[in-house]
């Protein structure tokens, strides 16, 4: 199964549809309620970052298999202003918008794998994976 889904993030309510799509996919894969909540929350954070900082972007969902493991992969891609110092945003309590500053480090803790790459002025890509246990 290599189907990929994508949700465009442009409005605040797109965050909800991204979250619902991710949650449904997670449920279908057999994740428990706690992991479903973790995945939905992580998607919510990533989508909100796109909405708040980049203005628009996409979230891709697919299923990854690394025999015998199976999991859900979420990629959040935007063409926004990018992040100057990734080390800084990964620290708890750092926020440029007056928020809690727990978003990205929180996502890292919620998921099993976390990769972030960003080019200032060109955009950001965050890829996270949660493995099914």
């Amino acid at each position, binding site marked *: 199964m290599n189907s990929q889904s994508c949700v465009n993030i442009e409005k605040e309510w797109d965050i909800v549809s991204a979250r619902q799509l991710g949650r449904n996919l997670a449920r279908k894969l057999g994740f428990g309620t*706690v992991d479903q*909540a973790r995945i939905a929350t992580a998607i919510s954070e990533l989508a*909100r970052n796109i909405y708040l900082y980049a203005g628009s972007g996409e979230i891709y969902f697919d299923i990854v298999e690394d025999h015998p493991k199976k999991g859900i992969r979420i990629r959040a891609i935007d063409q926004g202003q990018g992040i100057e110092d990734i080390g800084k945003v990964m620290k708890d309590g750092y926020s440029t918008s007056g*928020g*809690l500053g*727990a978003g990205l*480090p929180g996502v890292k803790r919620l998921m099993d794998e976390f990769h972030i790459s960003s080019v200032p002025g060109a955009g950001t890509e965050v890829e996270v994976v949660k493995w099914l246990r």
Partner: protein
Amino acid sequence: MNKKLQGLVLKNSDEIIRLWLRKVDQNHKKKLGQVAEVSDELFEGTNREFANVIFSMVENKGSTEELKTFSERLIQLGWPLSYLTDGMQVFRNVTVDYLLNQTEIVTKEDCIEVLHMVDDWIDPIIHHLVNEYSGNWENIVSLQKVALQELSAPLIPVVQGITIMPLIGTIDTERAKLIMENLLHGVTKHNAEVVLMDITGVPVVDTMVAHHIIQAAEAVRLIGATCILVGIRPEIAQTIVNLGINLERFPTKSSLKKGFEAALELTGRRIIDMDGSGDKIEELLETLSKE
């Protein structure tokens, strides 16, 4: 509109309608059947009415009264817009085909004229129908928005000094603002000492939602009341911990019941059974369930 062509269309309206009905019948019955229960009679009747409306548009150009009542009735019935737009598309094809086949009357030079005429005739109708439908949808959306806003942040006074705000559904920025306003306004109005914010129905608590809750609780504290966060489901508790959100500044409880008991305690009250038999029954039930 070319008089010759218009006359031709009107004179042969029965034939065109017959051709159209045959095509529409094949195309749409199946599609429509999935959306609503439609009897053959209703379907045929509506098709005939539709055809009459289309032809009355040729005869008295510009009058949209009939079209309006017709589309309003279909909206009431809940028929999809695609029934009308597809029907009009078929009508366009049928009419153009029919006219171009009248080779003894319609000459080669008339071909472009025919296409233009049919477009001029059909397009305003489609335009009008789409407008009617989308206007109706916009109306529904705005009504639902108002309804949603009424539901979005209610504050319920339960006993003297204690109020509850049950939150259900997604919290976005707009709603978060409303929650804050209603909370502060309600606390002063009802003279509340304790506010219970129930998040049982909130599907996801991310940092933004948590941030708004913390701000609201902090604001409540500033005006001299206590905010207790209740209805934290186990999975939500885990994600809050994973996110590293600090909710230590105000009390939290798992359920509304526990929160209410805590609120009573804070206001110097507690629940007692009138005859003391409640405890006994509970004890009895407990022993029964153990057996």
